[in-house]
């Protein structure tokens, strides 16, 4: 059984710990390729949404311009953008071999992500109350599928980060855990990238 060295002294901590081993390098390359696949996935979702936007069975259904209100979308954007920055801090401290601070910033990222998710759920509940549901129209289906897939990615990210914080709490930092944290950070940034397009294409262009 191979051994893994934890809590490496800083003078032996590599400049790029996440890619210091072959496995870390593989994970890094493989995850970027996965993200490229995710681009195609979200592109299909955006395309579907654009094709079905405001496509409703009758005139008494609410359309994008009636539904969306910008202040909520703005707050959500700020929360997610900030959580992207906090995960940058986590990676920064990981590279500086500062385990405690890394855990702290990961924790803050999780909190911000959870706040975002809470607002998204609030938004969904509100729209459902107004009669705009997954089953009410093709527009509703496309809207909830696009935003819901993003929300699902957020949930997965939150569970992932929480698991990482808990599992690493006992272990500490090694090139093995560093690769895991870096991969999570890439994932979280990518969720933010998708959200940038969502707030632009769905919300901003929706109310125009």
């Amino acid at each position: 059984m191979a051994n893994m060295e934890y809590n490496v002294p800083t003078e032996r901590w590599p400049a790029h710990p996440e890619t210091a081993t072959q496995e870390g390098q593989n994970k890094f390359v493989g995850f970027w390729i996965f993200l490229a696949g995710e681009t195609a996935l979200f592109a299909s979702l955006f395309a579907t949404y654009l094709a079905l936007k405001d496509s409703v069975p009758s005139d008494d259904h609410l359309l994008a311009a009636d539904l969306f209100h910008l202040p909520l979308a703005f707050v959500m954007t700020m929360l997610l953008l900030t959580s992207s920055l906090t995960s940058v801090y986590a990676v920064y401290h990981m590279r500086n071999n500062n385990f405690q601070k890394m855990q702290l910033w990961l924790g803050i990222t999780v909190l911000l992500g959870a706040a975002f998710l809470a607002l998204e759920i609030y938004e969904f509940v509100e729209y459902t109350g107004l009669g705009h549901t997954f089953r009410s129209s093709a527009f509703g289906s496309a809207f909830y599928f696009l935003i819901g897939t993003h929300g699902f990615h957020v949930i997965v990210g939150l569970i992932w980060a929480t698991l990482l914080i808990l599992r690493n709490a006992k272990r500490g930092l090694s090139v093995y855990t560093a690769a895991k944290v870096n991969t999570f950070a890439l994932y979280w940034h990518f969720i933010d990238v998708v959200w940038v397009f969502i707030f632009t294409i769905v919300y901003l262009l929706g109310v125009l």
Partner: protein
Amino acid sequence: MAELNQEPMTKAQLEYLRRQRTREMRQQLVSFGLMIFLTFIAFGLTAMEVIPAQFTIPLVLGFAFIQVILQFYYFMHMKDNGHQFAKLFMMTGFYFAIAFCVTFVYIVWIGAPVN
């Protein structure tokens, strides 16, 4: 998992690495500021409706692309060495993404064009 075989670094090397990381952090903070700023402008333009919609649409889309480039290059370290394949893959992905969206906006409906 291969064991860590990093030679111990000298004080000067460590100091250099630390300085470099601080500089990088500063860049990341600046790009964060830019992203917040662009978001403000995009929401502001849309909410105030100071300029006509046909100008706002390309403008906010452009802002989104700038934000995403910042996110990729600074937050996700795409500007660093060893990211060539990542750039290639993401650019291909974005190219296809734009192609998908354009077709779905313009050619998903039956009928009209055959005249």
